[in-house]
């Protein structure tokens, strides 16, 4: 069979993955902004509109798990979950390395930072949703549980805000990664440098099929 030219771009995210990321991102943004207005004294002073902010926050909070649940019906997303869950020996090496960005440690489709971030965000969503439900239906819970939930919700939200800022900072620094999430595909060279193992995986399949 004729040799096929190497594809310049490889598929990184299907529409299902991209729309999951997009809707989660929008909801998370709405939640963080309304949370800031609700709980930071400085922001409450400038903006106010507490009842509106509260309703928007509660509705966005209730909607937050829906993109994840819907995404679970998509094969590509479930494969991503599998990949994000497992830490390979290279992931640990990558995490400990100071020069992790030079591409010498070939990591899979997701690097260890992305894996940690996704696990943290999923854990946070579960805990924030549970404590948020206690806060919203507060009359059904004893005082200690309400105060405890409020405490957990506030401080975890602060950590999520920091993690989200970090996530956006990393994305700001890598236009190709952003393009991958926007259009779904990335250049092979980028994949080879940032996600070497995954690039090999994809290339392996290509070679097999073009035999």
């Amino acid at each position, binding site marked *: 069979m004729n040799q096929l030219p190497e594809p310049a771009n490889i598929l990184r995210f*299907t529409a299902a993955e991209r729309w999951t990321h997009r809707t989660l991102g929008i909801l998370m943004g709405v939640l963080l902004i309304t949370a800031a207005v609700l709980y930071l004294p400085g922001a409450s002073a400038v903006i106010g509109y507490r009842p509106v902010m509260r309703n928007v926050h509660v509705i966005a909070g209730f909607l937050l798990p829906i993109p994840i649940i819907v995404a679970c019906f998509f094969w590509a997303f*479930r494969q991503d979950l599998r990949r994000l869950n497992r830490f390979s020996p290279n992931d640990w090496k990558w995490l400990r390395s100071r020069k992790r960005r030079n591409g010498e440690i070939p990591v899979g489709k997701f690097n260890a930072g992305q894996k940690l971030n996704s696990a943290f965000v999923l854990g946070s969503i579960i805990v924030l949703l549970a404590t948020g439900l206690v806060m919203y239906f507060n009359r059904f819970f004893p005082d200690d549980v309400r105060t405890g939930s409020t405490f*957990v919700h506030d401080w975890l939200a602060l950590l999520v805000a920091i993690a989200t800022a970090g996530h956006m900072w990393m994305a700001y620094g890598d236009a190709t990664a952003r393009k991958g999430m926007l259009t779904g595909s990335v250049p092979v060279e980028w994949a080879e440098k940032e996600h070497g193992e995954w690039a090999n995986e994809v290339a392996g399949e290509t070679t097999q099929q073009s035999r």
Partner: protein
Amino acid sequence: MVSRENRRPEPNEEEIPLSRRMSIPVASLLQMCFHKRVEQPLKSPPAAAGAPVGRRIVLGMVGLGALGIIFGRTASQAVNSSVATAAPGLSGVLPGTGGFRIYTVTNGYPEYNVDKYRLTVTGLVSTPLSLSLADLTELPQTGMTKDFQCVTGWRVDDVPWSGVLLSDVLNAAGADLTAEALRFTSFDGAYTESLTMEQGLRPDVLVATTMFGQPITEEHGAPVRMYVAPMYGYKSIKWLSGIEVGEKVVPGYWEERGYAVDAWVGNSNGMTDEPIT
């Protein structure tokens, strides 16, 4: 550039679980809807390798969250007081530090002028009053150190308050003490509150002008607010501008929105908080 054809992996049919077979066409359909480029199919990852760290993190966080809910009350008091002591400036940025959460029902804090501020006392009174801050300081001053309990669950212990007892204000205006009701208005233009006359005459209901030994700050309702000690915080109207003596209790802002009119701490709104005495 030659774009590659959209090829699907074709392993034996019986190896593909039904759910995967169902989701592939849906995903492809969505991709066709939202994206024109022809893409290679995604590849399934190699067999699970390495420890399931992600799952451990998620489960660990759920466990920590549960612990936080159980021990959070103690922890939050410790954190709030240590932040308040170590870095008082942070309480404007961090949530819940200093114990209080600031709620407004309007856009920002209402503006006022210390010199022009007046508290009006009207309705069933023999002498309607329009009290300046100076007038208020000439009335008998009362101080008390009591907790502030919000209906949303947080409580600030031992807050020092001072000002004029509501009963002293009512007496100064010659209010008809057989009237049934009191209505409070705020110069934020939206918030209102209510008490019965019997409740308003209690010795722990204060027209407050200071908190923590300082003039009341903007976010706490400067220059004058109510402090209704035995009731949930929403009764303690901030930015107080008017007291009206009337015949019938008119439910206040939150009471029109479902909260109890008689908002005793621990005995209303379905709550079991420790009463404030």
